[in-house]
């Protein structure tokens, strides 16, 4: 199978190029994209990419696979190449500075994540045991806490491409709502006040690219809608 990989070493190369590799695929097996990358790496050890858990938990190997962001370790080659002439094209996640080949600088992504204060804030005295929640309150966090911060969503979002320094992005906003929805958190007002500007939340145009690519099947657009609803309720 033909595998085309984005190659760029800013220290040496003037411009990025696509390099092709012809990879012999084992018969009768549907490999994951990461397995194919590992086969390429055996042939050319200079190809760089991030990987760790190889089972869709760590979120390290987010990349653009045949035009769609996803995790290489849980994307089967058959699915990635469906209707694409059996060719695998791998590029780094779009819109972020490339450190080398498929490795991007996630600095701005983490800065935005940090800006929403991704931790429980409770100003009441700490109880002797954990702060308990009812099963109903706990259920409100389902579909939010599962995010692994792979950045597939934020880097597929044009609003994040144009304003990564001002728009929090779908991943950050999903986590922002995760803490807004948490009954144990007492900083709801401060959290909302921090988001009530024209960029942080409201730069989302609701095109749902984030929902389309999330490898965990989460829905940041819905979370953003909930945040807007909370901001509106606070003002009316």
């Amino acid at each position, binding site marked *: 199978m033909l595998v085309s990989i984005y190659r760029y070493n800013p220290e040496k190369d003037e411009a990025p190029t696509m390099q092709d590799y012809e990879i012999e695929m084992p018969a009768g097996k549907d490999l994951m994209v990461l397995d194919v990358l590992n086969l390429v790496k055996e042939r050319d050890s200079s190809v760089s990419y991030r990987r760790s858990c190889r089972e869709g938990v760590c979120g390290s190997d987010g990349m653009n696979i045949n035009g769609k962001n996803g995790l290489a370790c849980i994307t089967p080659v058959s699915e990635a190449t469906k209707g694409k002439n059996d060719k695998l094209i791998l590029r780094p996640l779009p819109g972020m500075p490339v450190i080398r080949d498929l490795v991007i600088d996630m600095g701005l992504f983490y800065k935005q994540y940090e800006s929403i204060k991704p931790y429980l804030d409770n100003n009441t005295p700490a109880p002797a045991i954990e702060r308990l929640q009812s099963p109903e309150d706990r259920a409100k966090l389902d579909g939010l806490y599962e995010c692994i911060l792979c950045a597939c969503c934020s880097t597929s979002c*044009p*609003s994040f491409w144009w304003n990564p320094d001002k728009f929090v992005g779908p991943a950050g906003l999903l986590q922002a709502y995760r803490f807004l929805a948490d009954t144990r958190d007492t900083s709801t007002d401060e959290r909302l*006040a921090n988001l*009530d500007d*024209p960029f942080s939340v*409201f*730069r989302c145009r609701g095109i749902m690219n984030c929902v389309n690519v999330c490898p965990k099947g989460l829905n940041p657009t819905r979370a953003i809608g909930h945040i*807007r609803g909370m901001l*509106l309720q606070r003002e009316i």
Partner: protein
Amino acid sequence: MVASISNLGRSGLYDWVIQRITAVILAVYTLFLLGFLIAHPDLQYSDWQELFACTPMKIASLLALVSLCAHGWVGMWTIATDYLKSTGIRFLFLLVVAAFVFVYLVWGIDILWGA
């Protein structure tokens, strides 16, 4: 929290609400005009003038005009802050948009309420 001095409503929420309310007003106004055109297949200039001469229609048209200006400004401001990265060019672009919006508003009021 990102500060901005050039958006319409001073906060993202205000801009967002303004854009949605004005969109509904413009949709209703457009649908009414479309309905009027469909209901009057042999439309004459006198019918058209009569429609716009009555006070409720003047009020509705003015509301639609103001909505269009607000809606347009929020939209153009969003486009400018997305795509125009040079502060100077963005400022100039927004100045031109503001001038157009103002001219259209005054001109529209003159057409509606002028002699």
